[in-house]
């Protein structure tokens, strides 16, 4: 263990360098998954997982504290934001006189997204909740180790 720590910097050079390129790519990929979910395999849940993996990779290469620093908010607070989005997307139709959580569509052919509606907002909420949950759990555990 001792020797490993001494060599930490050296060991991680490759990992860090590759992470610098991989992180934005993975995040982009997760957003891609999120948006295409309505038509092709993907969706908020998988997208959120992929994004969390990206951040976990970053925290491995550097340290959890530095990963948290990248956010301006703690991952813990991403959870309520996501939940709120889910809930609001459900409430949205009630403003228009439909029952709670019925699908509402605003535009049919948005570039790259396709149909834009309450379902997408809901998916974004799920995406955020998943990121928040995974990162909160992982970072809390790693802080304790």
């Amino acid at each position, binding site marked *: 263990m001792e020797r490993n720590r001494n060599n930490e910097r050296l060991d991680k050079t490759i990992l860090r360098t590759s992470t610098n390129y991989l992180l934005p790519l993975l995040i982009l990929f997760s957003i891609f998954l999120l948006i295409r979910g309505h038509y092709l395999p993907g969706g908020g849940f*998988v997208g959120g997982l992929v994004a969390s*993996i990206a951040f976990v990779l970053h925290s491995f290469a550097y340290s959890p504290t530095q990963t948290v620093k990248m956010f301006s908010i703690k991952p813990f607070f991403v959870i309520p934001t996501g*939940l709120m989005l889910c809930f609001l997307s459900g409430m949205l139709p009630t403003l228009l006189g439909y029952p709670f959580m019925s699908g509402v569509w605003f535009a*049919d052919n948005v570039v790259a997204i396709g149909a834009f509606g309450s379902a997408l907002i809901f998916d974004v909420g799920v995406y955020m909740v998943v990121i928040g949950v995974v990162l909160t759990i992982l970072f809390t*555990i790693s802080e*304790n180790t």
Partner: protein
Amino acid sequence: MLLPIIVTFLLAFLMLLLKPQKILRLFKFVCVVPLLLFLYLITYLPAVYQGTKSILFKNEWIPSLGISLDFKIDGLSMLFGLMITGIGTLIYLYAAEYLKRDENIHRFYCYLTLFMGAMLGVVLSDNLITLFIFWELTSISSFFLIGYNTDQEASRKSALWALSLTGLGGFLMLAAFALIGIVAGTYSLNELLAYPDVLLNNEYYYIIIFLLFAGAFTKSAQFPFHFWLPGAMKAPTPVSAYLHSATMVKAGIYILARFSPILGGDTVWNDTLMIVGGITMVMGAVLSVFHKDMKGLLAYSTISALGIIVFLIGIGTETALYAACTFILVHALYKATLFLITGIVDHATHTRDLSVLRGLRKVMPVIAIAGFIAALSSAGIPFTFGFLSKELIYGVSTDGIWTQESIFVLTGIALLTNIFLTSSGFLAGIRPFFGKLPKEFEKIKKPNFYLWFPPVLLSALTLLFGIVPSIVDQSILKSATISVLGTSTQMYLSLWHGFNLVLLLSAITIVLGILLYFAIKPSSRNESRLKGLDDFSPQTILTSIALGIRWFAFRYTRFFHNGYLRVYIMFIVIFFTGIVGYKLFADVPLRVNTEDLSAFRIYEFTVFVITIIAIYFITSTTSRLTSIAALGVIGYSICLIFVFYGAPDLAMTQFAIDTLTVVLFVLVLFKLPPFLKFTNKKIQFRDGVISVCFGILISLITLQALVSPSEKDVSKFYADNAYVLAKGKNVVNVILVDFRGFDTMIETIVLSIAAVGVYSILKYKTQDGEKSE
């Protein structure tokens, strides 16, 4: 009627906002709340005056379950409602002065107001379920009031006893209510009163009444559940005066009286009430005179008085019920007075010891007069209200429905109880004020208005009702009796019945009671003699039962919750295998249809071999990292299988999840001590058997699932409508975010709760560690 009760509850919580340090005076005005309620109830008095009709306030709540917030005012509700709010007003006034140095007085008023609202709810509810809710609220709020002095262990313990006993009783009573609802098909008291025979002739009748008795007896401190009441005297005196003499303990009486026209009439009902009430009234009265603590004495005489009322309801004749209703009011008036006086004496002298307190009439003459009147009323001396009720109680035995022997028995125990109650009333209301004033009490200041006014007003009413009974008997007592009896009554209170047996009995009671008063000297010796009885008391028995339960719970928890994750998993797997396996073999014809299975393809075979190798590594390795990596391999193999069978969504999710799981394991791994070998051959064999059974079971279930025809309609609907209704081509995702979006939303909430759980558990531990450092 709904509005005043809701407002009462809201006001209770608003009390918490009052800062005691700044606006202490304000609490003297809080008594406006019960006063307004009192006046509000008074306005309905003319309507129920004749006793024949009741006013119903309908409010729907959960109509599908038959639960409503209906309220009903009839004579009985009115009697209790007026007592609760009327005596409540005086208690509010009194407590503002009594607790003025208490920094938590705002909490006290919150609890007290909650209690008052709940109590009003109990006596006014028409729906049994609503009644039960309010009933429980009285138990809960009284828990806080009894345990108000949170720094005293005795006080906390008594609060817990009171809550456990009344809570247990309430639970059984809920069962009674549920049975009534099933049998009669309604929870409405009003409808039950209309068709009483439905319950009387039912096979569940005896179960219902005994469950109901359990609730009423625990609340009203009947033998053998009486012991929580003396313990509850640890509460501040205004609470004892309000809850434990005038109102809460009478809730059980209210239930019995309320159900008397519905469930009464059977000999079991009458006999049980007479026996339990009889035992309670004699026991309470006899025990009361041996106490030297004023509150202890009053507690036992209250138990006795409650016993008398239960006894009278048990007799159930017209005279008996009239006597019961009258005695409820008589007792509330004189007992509240005695409690309030005790509080004043305690406040001034800092002792409630009857062997020390003497001659206080010189320093607090007004209080002495109030105590004197209350004592006379409890003894039943003419021209006090107590005289009238005592005449009625003796009148019951001369009703003419009894055999010669039972008259003797009834009169005998009534006489015995009244003699002892007379002297205990004298001990509490007269003894502290007469005799020679000890030197240390000479400099006591006179109590101020807020303290002396409530008991004096109550004793004045005792006197007034005693001299002019027509004020109360026609207006309220008669209509209350009618609601208990179910039919109209011609009874009335009168001061003079002529020279007859009843008068003679009253005279004997008073003479013997006074003799007993002079014979008994309150001393520590008497109290210590009572302590000897404790070994046989119900409290000791119940305590040992409670300890037994705790012992069992401890053992049970140790066995199942021993802190080893591997044992937890083993229990879960065994239990699952057992229960699902039983269901599978017992209920389903086991068929394995091999014809529909497709043949092994080469890449499936490869994945299968990889999985087997990974499993071998997991079970045989001594390195944690190896086993985790192997676990990851299994996860990815399953991903591949998903891919082969055309489920890319599942495969992606599984892939991501597996990656994260391995990461999580690795993170935790660093914390664990080095790999140790705990197992021996025996354990390995056991675990092997368990896992093989579990594996076989899961495989069988999977094969079985293939055989049974699956419902294709649902999946066809989703596939057909995903694009039409939800504009999505990925059916899985459309189901997740649209068709079953509600489920997904709940699942996100579950996930968040898990994260909060992990966060709080681990953070809590770190903070703990920091403290210890």
